């Protein structure tokens, strides 16, 4: 095998994985995956949505068992029977989907590995000392109350808790599965600082991300998975161009095009005196037909909440919404949908997906009325209405009857988008984190779809923690700080200027 001949035979890899296969029933998640990590180096694992990255990660940390294949840790053949053994061996996972316990406190969540790992019938729960916990949170820059239940934290803060928990462990191998998906730039930078420090101490890091900037900033080596097979196997990152990587991932080049945005028309969505909480300042927002307005803010700034309020998905303390001059009660999604306001929530799993239901049924949930007459579903009507959208968005695998829970994250996101795009008289589309955890091909597809919607005359609001995305898509960017608007930036504003404004620094 060619794979064996490459690499240095005398060398001890921190992690050496070969020939891994994993099937879920008829779905083949991994066919023949391999991975070789050097100590003290960051190894990027790339692949499009559904390529099998998360599955491979879960196998490495013992959360699931492979059908076949070998894993060696520091040269010793190892197959963890459970995460507990992996943690004990210093293999620390930070998961893509939050694995926190909402009812339990931050401290208890930080102690989850310790609680899981403590042996025997110990009377005391193995809580991490408070000072240690504080230090872990400080490392990621989170300053929240240790006794607060995690359900009271925002998504970004939860992500930080999850990261802090992983970074706090004693580790020989750190596995980061899309840790930055919900993080801002500052937070990402801070995370990278910690990761580099760990590397300097000899820890090997497996890093999954769909963001090339981050990969180039952090990684030393790279493996690319395609359809469960390693098509680039532990090559130095420096030896590969971005184009080569993308081709390896997708089989084809994707042009991250500079899109021409449509010309905005008259006002469609107007929000007056919108206050999220009684203490927040009022915000007035107008979005015009064909206009894409970006909402940008740091984690906890309230950008996502404000966007949700614009879609009627969140109750507000004060303020009114109107679509084309027609008043809309705030916080009433039913009326909002009837008025043509689409919404893609940030938390795909909790607020978007109908897990056990078919992809097609997920896509059609906002338009059931369209293909039913007299309360009866028109046979074939649903498929006729939605199938073109699923095709247009390139659902993969194209199996509309498969339960939504079985699709990869990017494709789940496409389902949520198609749900809204299919609304025939869509006037407003509010999208939160449009491409969180989505690969670059899907990201381009989703961006195209948003611009196209604007081209149809839809007023689009995009709230994202991914600044590149906001900058690429928006006619103008509204800066959100402390739950309300703090100025507006035109298209073409540089990233540095944007960052400054988000952090509250105004140009002199």
């Amino acid at each position, binding site marked *: 095998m060619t794979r064996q001949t490459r690499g240095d035979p005398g060398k001890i890899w921190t992690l050496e994985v070969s020939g891994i296969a994993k099937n879920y029933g008829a779905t083949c998640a991994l066919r023949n995956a391999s991975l070789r990590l050097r100590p003290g180096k960051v190894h990027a694992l790339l692949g499009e949505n559904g390529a099998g990255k998360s599955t491979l990660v879960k196998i490495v940390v013992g959360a699931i068992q492979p059908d076949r294949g070998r894993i060696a840790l520091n040269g010793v053949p190892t197959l963890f029977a459970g995460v*507990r053994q992996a943690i004990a061996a210093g293999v620390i996972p930070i998961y893509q989907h939050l694995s926190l316990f909402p009812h339990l406190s931050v401290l208890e969540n930080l102690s*989850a590995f310790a609680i899981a790992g403590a042996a025997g019938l110990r*009377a005391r729960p193995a809580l991490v000392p408070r000072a240690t916990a504080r230090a872990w949170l400080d490392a990621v820059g989170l300053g929240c109350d240790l006794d*607060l239940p995690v359900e009271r934290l925002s998504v970004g803060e939860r992500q930080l808790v999850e990261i802090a928990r992983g970074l706090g462990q004693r580790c020989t191998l750190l596995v980061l599965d899309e840790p930055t998906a919900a993080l801002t730039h500052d937070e990402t930078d801070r995370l990278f600082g910690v990761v580099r420090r760990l590397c300097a101490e000899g820890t090997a890091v497996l890093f999954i991300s769909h963001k090339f900037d981050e990969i180039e900033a952090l990684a030393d080596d790279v493996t690319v998975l395609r359809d469960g097979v390693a098509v680039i196997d532990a090559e130095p990152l420096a030896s590969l161009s971005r184009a080569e990587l993308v081709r390896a991932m997708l089989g084809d080049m994707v042009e991250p095009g500079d899109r021409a945005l449509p010309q905005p028309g008259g006002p469609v969505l107007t929000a007056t005196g919108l206050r999220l909480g009684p203490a927040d300042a009022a915000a007035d927002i107008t979005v015009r037909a064909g206009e894409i307005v970006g909402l940008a803010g740091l984690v*906890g700034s309230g950008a996502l909440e404000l966007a949700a309020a614009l879609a009627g998905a969140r109750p507000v303390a004060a303020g009114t919404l109107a679509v084309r001059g027609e008043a809309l009660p705030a916080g009433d999604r039913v009326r909002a949908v009837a008025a043509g306001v689409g919404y893609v929530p940030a938390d795909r799993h909790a607020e978007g997906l109908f897990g056990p239901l078919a992809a097609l049924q997920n896509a059609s949930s906002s338009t059931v009325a369209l293909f039913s007459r007299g309360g009866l579903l028109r046979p074939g009507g649903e498929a006729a209405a939605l199938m073109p959208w699923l095709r247009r968005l390139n659902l993969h695998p194209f199996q509309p009857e498969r339960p939504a829970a079985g699709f990869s994250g990017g494709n789940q996101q496409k389902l949520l988008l198609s749900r809204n795009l299919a609304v025939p008289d869509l006037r407003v589309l509010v999208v939160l984190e449009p491409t969180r955890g989505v690969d670059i091909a899907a990201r381009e597809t989703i961006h195209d779809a948003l611009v196209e919607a604007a081209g149809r005359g839809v007023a689009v609001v995009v709230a994202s923690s991914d600044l590149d995305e906001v900058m690429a898509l928006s006619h103008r960017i509204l800066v959100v700080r402390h739950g309300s608007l703090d100025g507006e930036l035109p298209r073409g504003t540089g990233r540095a200027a944007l960052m400054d404004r988000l952090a509250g620094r105004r140009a002199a």
Partner: protein
Amino acid sequence: MSARLLRRSADGLRAAGSVLPVPFRVAPLCLILAVAVFAATAPRFLSLGNAANIGAQVWVLALLAIGQMFVLATRGFDISVGAVAALSSVCAAMACNGWGLPGLAAGALAGLLCGLINGALVGMLGLQPVVATLGSLIAVRGLSLLITGDGQVVPLDAASAVTRLGFEPMPVLPAASWAALVLAVGAALLVGRSLAGRRILMAGSNPEAVALVGVDTRRVQLWAYGLCGLFAGLAGVLMTVRAGSGLPTEGAGMELQAIAAAVIGGTALSGGIASVAAVVIGAAFIQVLLTGLNLQGVSPFVAQIAVGVVIIASGLLETLLRSLPSFHSQSRTRT
């Protein structure tokens, strides 16, 4: 006098409210209300004797509810507890006849065994809790009949010695009630202060994540159901102690009362939160309500309606408490 009492209890409640999580405020509130109403209408209700009486009676239901709480906290539930208590009561009685007083422990053991079987069905074989425990409910009832010659009670040879534990006030409460109290404290420590308890709460709070951080979900469920069975078994032992005999057909409908007590006691049906104290108070509330209404000469059928209404009202009360402004003041945190 009752007005002052009300005012004072309201003050106490406000103080307690600031420390107790919302769901755990419902049971105390209900209990105080019920006691106030009965005290106002029945002169002898507020006596030390009556309090001791209730303190002695509440424990069968309370132990069942505590057991139920462990399972509810993992997002399961167990409808076999009444049947398991009956079987345990019989086992305790038979073993006690054979080996004397220590034989009573056999009841707890039998309960634990039934619970572990439930846990294995749910945790290892992946059955839905209702189905698994419905199956064991029927099977356990059958087993009770089988070992008792079609449901004959098993009188204790040493009945008078044993029942003394159940009735004679040691100080204030009989020995059996003190024992139950100790068990409840043990359960509280288990939930609040132990590894096992923390893992149970984790499993209920986020079932998908718990395996990902290295907790063996199947084992957690095994233990949660095992504990539920153990406490049902202990309730059965208590029944035996108070009845001086093993009661094979006892406890139909107890499972629903136990679940009601656990829920009134703030155990979230969606898992993840539990408090033994609140559950015991919930059980006391149901017991006070039933006894109080009965003693007032209210038709038992009307009393049944009242309990139903109160169960629903306790749910509404929780919703109400949740919507109070104090709860929401911190709900959005910002960095």
